[in-house]
Every structure is written in C-alpha cells, then in structure tokens.
C-alpha cells in the first residue's frame, strides 16, 4: 500500500481531516452540533452511536456529499469550500464505501474499478486494468472480474466497492456502515479486508456497529448522540470504562446480548 509509506513523512501536514465547529441543519432539524474532530494520518477511527445521531452525516460532510452550514473542514490541507474544483480535488483523495455498496450495475467488476482511474486520473486502460486486478486480488475477488455486480453476493459486492475506492489511491477511507446491509455470514469477509487495510496503515473513519472490529483496529472510538460527539477515547477505556451515562446505556444495549 503506497499510502502507508508516508506515515513518517513530516513534510506533509500530519492532520488528514480537521473539523472545527461544524454545524449542519436539515431544515429546522439540527443534525450536527459543534463538531470538533481531528484525524491524524494513519489513524483509525470508529464512530458509533444510535441511529439518527448524525454519524453518517458527519463522514459524508468530509467529502461534501452533504454540505455543512457552519464551521470549517480541512481535508489533507485543503479547506473545503463551495468551489466545485476544490471539492473534486478533495474527493479524489478521499475514498468512500457505502452501506449499499453503490457499485455501477451497468459495468463489470473490472470496469467498476477502472472507470475513475481512467476518466478522473487519465490513466490508460491497460494501466488501470492492471492496477484494478491487483486490488481485486487483494480483496480476494479477482476471479469475478468479468462478472456484473448483480451476479455477486453482498459481501463480494462490498469487497469490490472497497477495491474500487482503493484504485484511486486515497489518503483517507470513509466507511459508512459497510456491513449493515450484509447477511451475517458475509460480514466477516468484509471486516477481514478492512482489518488488513487498517494494518497497512490506511487512515480510516468508520461508522459501524461492529464493536469487535472497533476493539481490534481502532485507535479511537467516538460516540455520537443527537448530532454531538459525546465521548471520545481509546477502545479499551471506551468499552471498559465509559464516562457518560448515554454511552453506558448504548454499550449495554449493543453488547448486552
């Protein structure tokens, strides 16, 4: 993984994502309240919280799939503004994996992985395909390259989606509940790929309810409720000694059975 090599690189800023006083409303509904968040290069962050707490909205603000109305977001040293060119520049360095995979159904698995490198990074077809095959092998799905997404299982589709993002050589990966839409027997194959990615040093922000995953890979766990960051800690103290009552309740509910 190329991005792993420059963790120690001090010439670039150490902060990958920076959010300062970010607020967002849907009409009158206050979805994000005074979010302050710093993610250093190579850091793995898991965001959890009850549904509707603004977790997805938070990470979707980072690549401007959602627009924030107040506060500053800086991604890889580039401040996020209304400027379309700048948004596209940020998106090229931020990979995203969605809950419902969002593979392009009219393209084969291989084409799904080649289309952005070819059209956004202007790589040749040959170069893009070779690279796509390398990443498809890494997520262990190379033998399905000629198939269409509709012919794959959910777990396979999600691994393709991860490979598709990696083909753009992102500096940060955003995971928006990547295993929530999967059958139980397929969750592991996707988590395994994510754990490997984490071990290689990829900067990751991951919205998930997989607490086992959080315990193994996360540097920090963030708990959100009602659009606010309630608690933020390393996994061990977070799970063993949660500070706020709201976190304790949440953890007892999802770990209780």
């Amino acid at each position: 993984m190329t991005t792993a090599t420059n963790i120690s690189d001090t010439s670039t800023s150490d902060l990958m994502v920076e959010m300062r006083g970010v607020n967002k409303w849907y009409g009158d509904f206050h979805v994000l309240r005074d979010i302050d968040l710093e993610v250093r290069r190579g850091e793995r962050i898991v965001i959890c919280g009850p549904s509707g707490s603004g977790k997805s909205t938070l990470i979707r603000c980072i690549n401007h799939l959602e627009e924030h109305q107040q506060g500053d977001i800086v991604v890889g040293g580039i401040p996020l503004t209304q400027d379309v060119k700048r948004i596209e520049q940020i998106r090229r360095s931020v990979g995203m994996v969605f809950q419902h995979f969002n593979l392009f159904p009219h393209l084969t698995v291989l084409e799904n992985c080649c289309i952005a490198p070819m059209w956004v990074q202007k790589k040749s077809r040959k170069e893009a395909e070779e690279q796509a095959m390398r990443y498809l092998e890494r997520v262990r799905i190379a033998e399905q390259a000629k198939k269409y997404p509709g012919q794959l299982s959910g777990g396979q589709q999600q691994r393709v989606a991860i490979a598709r993002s990696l083909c753009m050589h992102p500096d940060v990966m955003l995971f928006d509940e990547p295993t929530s839409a999967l059958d139980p027997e397929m969750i592991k194959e996707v988590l395994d790929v994510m754990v490997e990615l984490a071990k290689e040093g990829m900067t990751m922000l991951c919205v998930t309810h997989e607490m086992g995953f959080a315990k193994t890979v996360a540097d920090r766990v963030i708990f959100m409720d009602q659009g606010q960051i309630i608690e933020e800690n390393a996994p061990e103290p977070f799970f063993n000694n949660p500070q706020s009552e709201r976190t304790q309740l949440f953890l007892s509910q999802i770990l209780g059975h």
Partner: protein
Amino acid sequence: MIHNQTIIKERPAPSSAVGPVAWLRTNLFNGPVNTLFTLIGLYILYLLVVPTVQWAFINADWVGSTRDDCSREGACWVFINARFTQFIYGLYPRSEIWRANIVFAGFFTLIAWLAIPRLPFKRWVAVFALVGFPVIAYVLLHGGYFDLPRVSTHRWGGLMLTLLLATVGMVGALPIGIVLALGRRSNMPIVKSFCVVFIEFWRGVPLITVLFMASVMLPLFLPSEMSVDRLVRALIGLTLFQSAYMAEVIRGGLQAIPKGQEEAAAALGMTYWKRMGLIVLPQALKMMIPGIVNTFISLFKDTTLVMIIGLFDLLGIVQAALSDSRWLGFSLEGYVFAAFMFWVFCFSMSRYSQYLERKLHTGHKR
C-alpha cells in the same frame, strides 16, 4: 434428528406439467368456461382472417397497368404497382431517382451496420452516419453542387420524405431531450426554469399548431429576404416538439436511478458531466428504452401531419394518388399499403428495442 443425509437427486418434471398438450390444457381448455371462451375466440378469429386473406391475396389482382386489369373481387394491387415510384420518391424527377437510390442504399446500409452486432468499426461508422452521411445525402438529394441539377425540396416526397423527417427528428430529439431533462433537474434556477418553460410550452401545443405556425406565422415575422425552406421549418418544429416529450421520458429514467449511484461517482472525484455521462445516463437511457422507442414510433407516425403544410409524405402522396380520376375507388388498397409501410417500420423499431433491452440487460434487476 437427521432426516436426509444425502441430497435428493434432480428429476425432470412429470410429463403432465410440460409439453404442448399440457400447455393447451392449462391455458386454453382448463374447465368448461375457458373451453367455451377458447372456442368462441377461435370462431371470431376465423370470421376475421378468412375474408381478409381472400381479399388481400387469393382474390387479388397483382399484374397489369390500368384499372381494367382489376377484374376480380379482391384487392387491386395494380394501383400500388402503377404508383409505386411516386409513393417512394414523391415528385422527385424520374431522371434523378438514382441519387435518391444511393441515399436509400447508404441509409439502410448504415442502419444495418450499426444494428448487427458482429460488424466491426461501430464507432467510426456511427461518426460517419452522424457527420459525413447527412452532408452526402443533402448534396445528393438537393443537388446544385458538382453539376447535379437542383431538386428543390417541394418535389421531395413519399417514403423518402417520411424517413427523412423521422430520422432527423429522432437524431435531433434524443440529444436535445437529454439536455432538457438534465436541465430540468439542475440546481441552477435559470437553467431549470428555461427547461421547464421550454418543455411545458412544446408539450402544451398540438403538433399541427406547431407546423402551422412554422409554415404560416414564421414568414410573417421574419424579413422577406430571409426565407427558410418549408421542409427545414417542418423539421425544426417536429424536432423541438418531440424533444420535449423525449425530455420527460428521460427525466423519468433519471429519477429511477438510485441516488447512491451519483454519490458513488461523486465520491470517486468525477465531475458533473462525467457522473452523468458515464454513470447515470447510461443506466437511465437503458431503463428508458421502451419509453424512448415509444416516442420514436409516435414521432414516425406524427410525420404524416406535415401533409397539412403541403408536404407530401408517404400518406400524403397516397392520398393525392387516390384523387386521380383514372384510379378512383381504390382508397382501401391505398390506405392498406400506407398502413403496411408504416407498420413495417414501427414494428422493426419495436423489435429492435426489445433485442437491445435483452442485450443490455446485465442482471442487476432487483
């Protein structure tokens, strides 16, 4: 408790459930009421088909040159035969018909080339069909260049004119419709309102009115030295009119594409036009093939309305021939012929669209 340790082998379905006899039994003769309906249906079919076949084929006259050759009770196809050249080329001068023939040949060759999957160089053929061929066709049909005598557009007619109107209409309406559909979904208020007004204006006006306006009103507003050919005016009117319908069909397709598709494309750093051109439109257009072809077919048949501004398309020229005193009383044959020609083209389009749907289907339907 274990019931079965081995998986039961596959067996074919029993013969009472498959095969033609089983099909007949389940679909046509399943119970006394259905049997009765089947028999009534067969009888009605018999009453309709037998006289039609007798009229059109068995008792019909095929050879000859005047109406006196039509002695029998059936159809008189001699009339169609005698007027065939006119039905195809309109009033195009006989000596110049070879020019129209070259264009016809080129037209059908290009369509076949693009439609048959095995043939190579599709991209270049498509570019030639859209850029080179129209120029060649215009030079040949219109003349006035390279010592070709000029044949002004009021002599163009028949099937040639119908195909010209339909092809230009389709090739023009699809891209304009796409742009209008995208514009109507745009976030930019000026673009959006322009597209809404444009679409609603053209959809709210009957095509006949559009054609009348184009042929009667437009010249009143334009300075007299600036005259636009009547055929060109009809073409513009027809194209803009159909593009409004096309836009709404395509907008339906765009709305059916899940939002996640555009988000995924955006997350990969694609610009608006790449998101649309590479991800959203290919899916939307594929999904909307039935609607698009439906619009094409109605456009094809709407070309007959140019009759009212004095252009003689296939139906117009057939109707004109019916009033010929030597051939009075053969209107049924004339209309059947015109209907058959229209049906052949519309049915081909419909079949081709079904083939396309099957070919482009990638198994992602949920």
